[in-house]
């Protein structure tokens, strides 16, 4: 039998259907892989007891003919989703030991469809970061290495770094993520897997630890687009508990992978070709355009003139919403508490001890831009430019159906690089943030390896509620790129065996 951890999610579900193996068997195979690769630090908490209990129940359901969409498939859950009775930390000391008494809507839907949870995946603290180096539970290490024998540990990207590393390293079949400025698409690109962020409002935010509420959106990782689309379908759907949840039918996203791009109009935004763009990234982008053309798509030039303002808008709106959302961590109702001489001092000491530096920095920026006298100059101004960014996209979609760009301006960097200068770190998200500001669906698919042997991804951006078209285009890229590279870590393991 093939290695159960090498199966795609779709093939695993098929194998379970045909009773080629049980959920308990495939779950155990993944738990073993997780144990073998603990040095990646992809999981904050492994939940073998929960997983095996769910797997046993799943096998019973299947035996009685009641199988859900993901019946018996072991997955990972980003530790930003509240899970009943299982520690949920957002990778922050302030939530260390917090065990929710309730289930997030998204994880509830996944379990309702038969998914098995292997554990809670590491991330940047409160999902604030692009390298998974701000977690209170330590850095996540990418399963990929450069081919220059330097052996430097690379970042898996962030904030959903644990999710991307675990899926890439075959520690789970698929995983949930969240994306506020690129936190699914950038780590997917860095780890050579597929990641999709749906339209804002597609997945309920209820029970997901909030960072920036008008930008946060859950999404899915898989080793191919079909898997990510399958997971996304289960995660999606209306939820009355989230006031921004959309009451819209959920399509069979995975069916779109094979849809083809004949006659599709694909937009190329010239603003995504900044001076000094890495020639390898530029070539990758041109390849992607040519692949779509070869499958019958029509290429059109579009313009998104406010692209360069995406990052400054993001770095006002996201911290503003963060400072407001994170005001709830006061040491009274849950989480860490450090006693002071009075209530004010208790708040100040608790928050000083509980939050890491990057979170504090963003709370400070947010508090400043929302403070008296600055609100109009910063926050309202940013919201106005945000509308111009959205209008750019709406204008472009009069001429095209889908937009293709690189996912990131570079391949994965080494842990510790870019850390002194927050602006440089923020530039990682230059191709992804505007999509969150406009609330649009976006995905990243692996398309090539660079000279250093590291994965590069292409991003597809769609109209609101039109995930299916970006999945169709992503499917065409997958077919043409035929990306079969596996992480260095697994190559080494194969050589040893």
């Amino acid at each position, binding site marked *: 039998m093939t290695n159960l951890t090498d199966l795609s999610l779709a093939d695993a579900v098929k194998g379970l259907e045909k009773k080629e193996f049980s959920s308990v068997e495939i779950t155990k195979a993944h738990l073993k892989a997780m144990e073998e690769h603990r040095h990646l630090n992809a999981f904050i908490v492994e939940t073998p007891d929960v997983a095996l209990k769910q797997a046993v129940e799943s096998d019973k359901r299947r035996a009685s003919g009641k199988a859900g969409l993901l019946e018996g498939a072991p997955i990972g859950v980003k530790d930003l989703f509240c899970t009943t009775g299982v520690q949920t930390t957002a990778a922050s000391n302030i939530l260390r030991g*917090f*065990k*929710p*008494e*309730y289930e997030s809507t998204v994880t509830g839907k996944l379990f309702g469809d038969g998914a098995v949870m292997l554990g809670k995946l590491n991330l940047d603290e409160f999902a604030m970061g692009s390298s998974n180096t701000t977690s209170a539970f330590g850095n996540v290490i990418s399963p990929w290495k450069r081919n220059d024998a330097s052996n430097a540990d690379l970042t898996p990207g962030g904030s959903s770094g644990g999710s991307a590393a675990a899926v890439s390293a075959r520690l789970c079949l698929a995983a949930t993520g969240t994306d506020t400025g690129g936190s699914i698409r950038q780590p997917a690109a860095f780890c050579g897997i597929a990641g999709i962020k749906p339209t*804002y*409002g597609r997945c309920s935010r209820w029970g997901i630890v909030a960072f920036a509420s*008008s930008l946060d959106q859950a999404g899915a990782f898989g080793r191919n687009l079909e898997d990510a689309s399958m997971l996304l379908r289960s995660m999606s759907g209306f939820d*009355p508990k989230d*006031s*921004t949840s*959309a009451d819209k039918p959920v399509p069979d996203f995975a069916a779109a992978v094979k849809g083809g791009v004949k006659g599709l109009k694909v937009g190329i935004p010239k603003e995504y070709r900044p001076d000094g763009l890495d020639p390898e990234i530029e070539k990758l982008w041109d390849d992607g355009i040519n692949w779509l053309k070869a499958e019958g798509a029509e290429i059109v030039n579009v313009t998104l003139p*406010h692209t*360069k*303002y995406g*990052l*400054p808008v993001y*770095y*006002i709106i996201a911290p503003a919403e963060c*400072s407001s959302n994170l*005001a709830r961590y*006061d*040491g*009274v*109702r*849950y*989480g860490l508490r450090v*006693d*002071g*001489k*009075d*209530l004010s*001092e*208790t708040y*100040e*000491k608790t*928050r*000083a001890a509980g939050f890491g530096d990057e979170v*504090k*920095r963003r*709370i*400070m*920026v947010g*508090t*400043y831009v929302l*403070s008296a006298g600055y609100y109009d100059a910063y926050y309202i*101004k*940013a*919201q*106005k*430019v*945000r*509308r*111009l960014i959205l209008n750019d996209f709406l204008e472009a979609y009069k001429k095209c159906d889908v937009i293709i760009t690189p996912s990131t301006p570079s391949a994965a960097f080494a842990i510790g690089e870019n850390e002194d*200068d*927050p*602006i440089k770190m923020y530039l990682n998200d230059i191709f992804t943030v505007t999509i969150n*500001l406009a*609330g649009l669906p976006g995905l990243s698919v692996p398309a090539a390896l660079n000279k250093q042997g590291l994965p590069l991804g292409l991003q597809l951006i769609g109209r*609101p509620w039109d995930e299916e078209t970006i999945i169709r285009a992503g499917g065409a890229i997958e077919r043409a790129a035929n990306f079969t590279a596996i992480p260095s870590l697994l190559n080494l393991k194969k050589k040893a065996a």
Partner: protein
Amino acid sequence: MDLKTVKKVATLARLEMNDKELEAVRAKLGNIMKFVEQLGEVNTDKVEPLANVVDIKLRLREDEVTDGGIQAKILANAPEATAGFFVVPKVVE
């Protein structure tokens, strides 16, 4: 940005910081605020601020009790709770 402003913001944000931390944050905040200044060059006359990207009207529901009776669950993660209440340091003398 001067240290006094940074100190005021830290107080507003309820974050205890010593002088060394304030100084470190000051430099980084200054950089970020300088970076966002470029928004000033965008003409936003007659542009409405965008707060919600998706065209979803906030829904109304009947004003009725749909939840409750879960005191133990609400207190389950409290750092300190007594007799069904959250416990905080003395607020009123």
